[in-house]
């Protein structure tokens, strides 16, 4: 009797979560699909025909893929050696290096892109410096620039992933390889790379998706090199656009493309299935001599370059500007002007939105993890699959899907903080629920069973035993989600208005309006907030346990 009641709690929960997904995920995607194939009340594929009949449109897919694949390759090439040096060698200032890595990848998008314009634009600091040596024609704009900016922002993801994978390698496997004469580079490629291939593929996919979905960088420095998210944005918001129908159709095409990539990655990962438990953890070696110096130089140089734009933006925020004109000298004028441009409201909104979103995704992630791991039924599986769907949806797509269905009755929440929270929760849920599920799997059900056999109810044992045991894993995932939420902008830029403006969107708006000093002030406040979040995060987490 008692037992069936508790069963009900989880049944109710699973249906409640399913209900939320139907309203906030399935319904918007359905709306998007309908918008794409219905025009003036009739079924029509005209938007798709239009897309594939004009090179102006379909080349954006080629551009997006070219960028995402190049960035992915560059990130792996830069990130894997970085992680190898970091994990296997006793580099000086390891902790500092790692924090800088996190800071690079957590920085708000397109702030980096704008800083690179200041540094390496046609009249940038570096460009002028090079010109004095007679080196001209260096430009940040176009394909090369997008790849550079995205690579420097995304390679730390590879480092974080690979560091975890390298530490899971059992020392005895390395020794066995060595005893059979497989050493040095040979061992690195044949043993270490093969053993970590699932993680390499996972990191590759993550980088690909981030790069593919990025909207700020190609918008600012593409200059004629248009990618899919930029095209969606232009079609949706451009003066002659405001074409929901066409923007929805492109969104559907993009989601199909990313889904295909997702499946290819899944298949590839399937070929490297093996389990390994690191009974004998790898040895951290001392690095000496020339190779030691080179390793230090490589790691610090890479992180230094990645940090450069953020430091430069902070510097620029204290320069004197008259609106868009840069004057001589330094002042707080940008901060004063930023205050008249809703800096406080943006900071406020950022905090409210991020904390609310965080609370929602933690709650959902914990419940989903429990359902998936402990109650493996059809509903749980459905929840698990649906919760991963946003992984392949770029922010711009989620933004448009939400605006299509929620700007009219019965759910008229467009323009409120609520819709921003929904968009961000959807975006981040796959990551948090994945890490919560992984944490849950490590907890043996016998502990809960013990509690139950001692007379605790199932809900009580979940709340008092399981959740506390998961907490360290959840908190570390959550704080990084928090930073991602603060710096997210691709869905927000479609959904925001003056009342729901956030710091990142404020930065974008001011860059867009040409008030660069004010934009730098917004960016600096964002960076300060990010640093605070990271410090809080490091209080709760050992560096080894970082998950992205």
């Amino acid at each position, binding site marked *: 009797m008692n037992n069936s009641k508790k069963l009900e709690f989880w049944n109710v929960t699973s249906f409640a979560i399913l209900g939320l997904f139907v309203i906030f995920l399935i319904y918007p995607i359905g709306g998007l699909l309908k918008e794409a194939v219905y025009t003036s009340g009739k079924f029509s594929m005209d938007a798709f025909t239009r897309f594939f009949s004009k*090179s102006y449109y379909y080349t954006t897919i080629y551009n997006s893929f070219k960028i995402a694949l190049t960035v992915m390759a560059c990130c792996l090439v830069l990130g894997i050696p970085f992680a190898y040096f970091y994990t296997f060698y006793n580099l000086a200032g390891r902790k500092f290096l790692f924090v800088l890595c996190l800071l690079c990848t957590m920085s708000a998008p397109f702030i980096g892109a704008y800083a690179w314009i200041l540094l390496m634009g046609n009249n940038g600091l570096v460009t002028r410096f090079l010109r004095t040596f007679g080196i001209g024609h260096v430009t940040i704009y176009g394909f090369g620039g997008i790849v550079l900016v995205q690579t420097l922002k995304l390679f730390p993801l590879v480092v974080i992933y690979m560091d975890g994978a390298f530490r899971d390698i059992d020392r005895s496997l390395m020794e066995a390889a060595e005893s059979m004469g497989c050493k040095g580079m040979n061992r690195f490629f044949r043993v270490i790379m093969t053993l970590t291939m699932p993680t390499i593929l996972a990191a590759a996919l993550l980088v690909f998706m981030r790069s593919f979905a990025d909207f700020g960088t190609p918008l600012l420095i593409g200059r004629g090199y248009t990618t899919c998210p930029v095209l969606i944005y232009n079609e949706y918001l451009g003066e002659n656009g405001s074409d929901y129908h066409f923007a929805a159709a492109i969104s559907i095409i993009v989601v199909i493309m990313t889904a295909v990539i997702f499946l290819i990655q899944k298949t590839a990962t399937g070929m490297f299935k093996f389990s390994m438990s690191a009974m004998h953890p790898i040895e951290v070696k001392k690095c000496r001599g020339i190779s030691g110096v080179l390793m230090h130089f490589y790691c610090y140089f890479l992180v230094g370059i990645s940090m450069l734009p953020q430091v430069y933006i902070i510097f620029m925020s204290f320069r004197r500007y008259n*609106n868009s004109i840069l004057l001589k000298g330094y002042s707080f004028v940008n901060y004063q002007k930023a*205050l008249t441009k809703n800096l406080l409201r943006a900071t406020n909104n950022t905090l409210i939105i991020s904390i609310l979103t965080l609370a929602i995704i933690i709650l959902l992630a914990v419940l989903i993890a429990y359902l998936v791991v402990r109650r493996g039924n059809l509903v749980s599986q459905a929840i698990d699959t649906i919760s991963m769907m946003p992984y392949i949806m770029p922010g711009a797509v989620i933004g448009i899907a939400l605006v299509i269905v929620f700007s009219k009755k019965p759910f008229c929440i467009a323009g409120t903080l609520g819709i921003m929270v929904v968009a961000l929760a959807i975006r981040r849920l796959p990551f948090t629920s994945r890490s919560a599920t992984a944490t849950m799997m490590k907890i043996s059900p016998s502990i809960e069973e013990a509690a139950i056999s001692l007379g605790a109810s199932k809900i009580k044992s979940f709340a008092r035993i399981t959740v506390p045991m998961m907490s360290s894993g959840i908190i570390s995932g959550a704080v990084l989600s928090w930073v991602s939420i603060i710096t997210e902008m691709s869905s927000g830029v479609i959904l925001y208005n003056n009342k729901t403006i956030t710091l990142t969107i404020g930065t974008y*708006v001011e860059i867009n309006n*040409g008030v660069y000093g004010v934009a730098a002030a917004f960016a600096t406040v964002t960076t300060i907030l990010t640093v605070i979040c990271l410090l809080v995060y490091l209080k709760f987490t050992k560096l080894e346990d970082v998950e992205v």
Partner: protein
Amino acid sequence: MKKLVSVLLLISAVCGFAFAGGNKDAAAGKSGGARPSWAKSADEITGTLTVYTTMEETQQDILLNLWNEVYPKCKVEIVADSVGTLATKIRSDATSGADVVIGGMFAADGDKYHDILQPYTSTLDKEQAYHDPSGYYTFYDVQVMCLVINPNVLKDLGVSVKGYKDLLQPQLKGKIILADPSASSSGWRQLQTILATMGNKFDDEKGWDYIKQLMASSFKTNSSKDVYNLVNEGEYAVGLSYESTPAGIIAQGGATMKIVYMNEGNTAMPGGAAIVKNAPNLKAAKAMIDMLSSVEFQNQRADLAGRGSNKNCKASNLPADKTLNLKPLDYDYLGKNKKAMMDHWNELWAKVKS
């Protein structure tokens, strides 16, 4: 967490201090004057007025200074973007609270934005030189096009620019920036002006052939603000822009860029503002439209740089109309063929760039 809270408190305290300082400065700069005849009583216009505008900062400053002087009890919230973005945001967001759209609304728009606007005729309509036959728009500006150049960059390149034709010089390849006509209203106005001056007939093969050659040398951006800002910063040598805002920035001092009027000719078109449908603060919205059409506002714009629509507005220090070789535009034709011309542009761009 304690650390976080205290840091946040510190930041907000510093910000609050800076803000207070800024306000005092603004108040000290103004003194009393005769209240304009069109102005309603300050007590009547209260609350918040939400302005969606394409205006750049210097123009916003003029608008806000005069408004705060006349209606100190009504706060203005500004959302600035290009007009298409503003329109989409109003259409998709029932809670936008937008009261007026200022800028980006041109006489050749037809009924493009009527779905989000409501008709209103300014109380100063009799003083206006231009009228919207449909009764939606109130004009405050006459937009003329120009090229913005960076003299330093041009000197380095060893070229001079007097008009559209000069942009095809090989040294300028990659040094020209233009606004995408499908994203920015000034880009669309430039397209009209090129087609009106470079062909034998508007929208003919010869005009488009010039555009094709121009594209090969150009970068495009979504925002008209990028055009003059990036030329001023030396990112590009030449930009295809509209006149008033860069002229205003130059007049304020500190800018590197200069304005060149195309020797092939130019076009002029009245531009203005309108009240948004179901504006939450209709009273203030009407007061704003009246102010925009007033001599006081337009004179302040003219003092900096701007051509007014009010017959009594003083002449700006900008070159007189007759020196610009203005070509007529057929508004009906523009309204009807906008989409076709835009498609033509996009196709051509993709072809040239691939």
